[in-house]
């Protein structure tokens, strides 16, 4: 069920049309040369259909079926539900819809905070790392560790650290620093939101760091030298050169972080198991629970479809807004 929601990661940069080239007079050699790229793209296209489009289609199909344990094995034969599954999912006065809405808001707030913090930390670290100093290579490697670790192992370790009685977090916060009044719970109750946010940011910011660092390499040094000659300070250089130059990088970075965080299943699932605490009930796990735990696979599929539509809408609006902004700033 969860595979369905992964779809909009497709890279907008992969476009096959090259309109300028096709208008030129057709000569056999050229055609052959032109045909080859398409031929080479074919496997990718095929995979794209199999990996993304087909599951989405199956998900859509399931969303209109009454899919319970009785039809699980031969789900094509399940009776049609019409829009029934969607009705259940969006009836916000009834328990299922209410829980979905709650989970949706939690996910929105969580995603905004996580993406914001990841971006801020990643950018700050990348700017800081522009200066050459001893130990820079070591620090760079160290910063990328969370990104390189297998998600499962890393999150399990966090789960251990967040344990109330034997965990490292409470040991440091309470026993060593005396910041908390007692040993609070991190994996159950309201604090679980912050536990999840911590792990998510820890896991996500190195990616932002990596991308921003790559983006910074492309800014010509001369710009900074010229600015410095004109008397611009560090802050002004960051504001007038770094941030505008990073704009295209940030456009993609924020979008990717947003989609990954909004859809993240592994982190909450490994941290909390099948039943996440209400305060940290992210939508991907919520949908999983609706499908796999209560065996309402049709409703789960309907929720996935709604989630996909929402993410497409947000992505579309975002791309239109940010692209227009760029054009204006260039003109």
């Amino acid at each position, binding site marked *: 069920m969860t595979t369905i929601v992964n779809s909009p990661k497709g890279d907008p940069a992969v476009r096959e049309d090259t309109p300028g080239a096709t208008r030129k007079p057709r000569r056999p050699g050229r055609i052959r040369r032109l045909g080859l790229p398409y031929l080479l793209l074919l496997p990718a296209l095929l995979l794209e259909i*199999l990996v993304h489009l087909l599951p989405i289609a199956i998900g859509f199909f399931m969303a209109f079926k009454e899919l319970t344990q*009785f039809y*699980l*094995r031969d789900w094509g034969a399940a009776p049609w539900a019409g829009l029934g599954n969607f009705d259940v999912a969006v009836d916000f006065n009834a328990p299922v819809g209410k829980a979905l809405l709650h989970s949706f808001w939690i996910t929105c707030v969580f995603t905004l905070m996580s993406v914001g913090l990841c971006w801020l930390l990643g950018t700050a670290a990348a700017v800081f790392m522009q200066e050459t100093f001893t130990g820079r290579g070591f620090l760079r490697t160290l910063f990328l560790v969370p990104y390189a670790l297998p998600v499962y192992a890393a999150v399990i370790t966090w789960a251990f650290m967040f344990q109330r009685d034997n965990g490292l977090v409470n040991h440091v916060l309470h026993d060593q620093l005396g910041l908390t009044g007692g040993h609070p*719970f991190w994996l159950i109750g309201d604090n679980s939101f912050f536990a999840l946010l911590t792990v998510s940011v820890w896991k996500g910011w190195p990616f932002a760091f990596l991308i921003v660092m790559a983006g910074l390499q492309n800014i010509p040094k001369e710009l900074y030298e010229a600015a410095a000659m004109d008397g611009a300070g560090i802050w002004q250089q960051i504001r007038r050169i770094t941030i505008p130059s990073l704009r295209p990088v940030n456009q993609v970075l924020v979008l990717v972080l947003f989609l990954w965080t909004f859809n993240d299943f592994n982190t909450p699932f490994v941290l909390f198991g099948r039943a996440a605490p209400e305060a940290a009930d992210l939508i991907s796990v919520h949908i999983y629970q609706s499908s*796999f735990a209560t*065996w309402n696979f049709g409703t789960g599929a309907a929720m996935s479809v709604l989630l996909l539509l929402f993410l497409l809408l947000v992505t579309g609006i975002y791309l239109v807004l940010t692209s227009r902004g760029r054009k204006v700033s260039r003109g």
Partner: protein
Amino acid sequence: MQRIRALASSAVVVSLLAAATACGGGSSDEGSNESPKTLTYWASNQGPNVEADKKILQPELDKFEKQTGIKVKLEVVPWSDLLTRILTATTSGEGPDVLNIGNTWSSSLQATGALVPWDQKNFDKIGGKDRFVESALGSTGAQGKDPAAVPLYSMAYALYYNKAMFKEAGITEPPKTWDELTADGAKISKGGKWGLGAEGSNLSNNIHQVFVLAKQHGGDFFTADGKADFTNDAAVAAVKQYVDMMATNKIIAPGNAEYAKNQSLSDFSKGKTAMVLWQAAATTFKSQGMQDDEWGVAPVPVQSGAPGAGKATNSMVAGINLAVFKNTKSIDGSMKFVKFMTSDAEQKLLCKTYGSIPPVKAAQSDPAFDRPELKVLRETLATSATALPQVSDESQFETSVGTAVKNLFAQAANGKKLSTADVKAELTKAQQQMASQ
């Protein structure tokens, strides 16, 4: 990263193709014999960990290969993954040939139609239905239908207690009623030590405990015709009684609210907790360095005033069943393997190792199963254990009510005093999840 993504993509494609081809011909009622020489077996995690299980089972699988020439590929699946894995295999049609299921899921999985039904003919292939104990057969599927699985290991709940801690607190014999248990627990629960252990975030364990308490209150979580009924008085009283051991009686450590990976057993082994309600815990205690004479075992308590401990329900019928996946490519081989695993000799050997009770009558007579611990478990199973409702919604019940109990434990752990209304509200939410189907 790039390589990982490529690998992941190709894995998805392969599984999709497999799913697509499986959907085409998924209507045959019994498995075929396309590849009779190999089997895949999903074993549930029974021992202290997955590695231990592999070490225990592999020699037996080698023995089977020597006898029949059929090679068995073993995969030990942790409990937390097992049900999801089975459901995924059911949807895609690509699964193992033979697998373990928790016996409480029998009816739910039976309803999916993914498991080979055990009719007279199939039972004859493994020596007949009469070889198995009645109570174990009681949780192999819905009544009036051919069982969806055969019993493999049987277990029952018992009260395990730390002898030294009891002595220290001046307790001479294990509690017989819940009142005695909470009184004893209160004597012990001080100075970082606690009376009773619980696994507040383990949904299935929560269910097992509240089911028994509901039975003791004269009720159940389902109506006689199999409809979910989570908010009746007996069910509410049962759940309240269980979480109150933390919230009101304060004999369960608040930290237990987040336990789900048998941490309560380690606490017991370390002498932090004096009692646990568990099934066949001997192997785990041993692996955690506890000597067999350091702990004792008694039947799970009953309500005060109930006539005679041992008559009232004081355990669910716990255990593991063995099932054959309908999509198997080796139906004959699978049957041979089930016969092997349920043979008298294997039953004795495996149950001895795992500390469980053989559901095969002939194997039970082995003197190894006369140990005091197993005697208690065996008698419970024979006289006072009740099978969880064999209804197709059982698995959903485990998740929804199990989550409700988890949420209530979380509130109790944060210091909230729980009223009957609080308990009823959580159970109502659980009930509504079910009603939406």
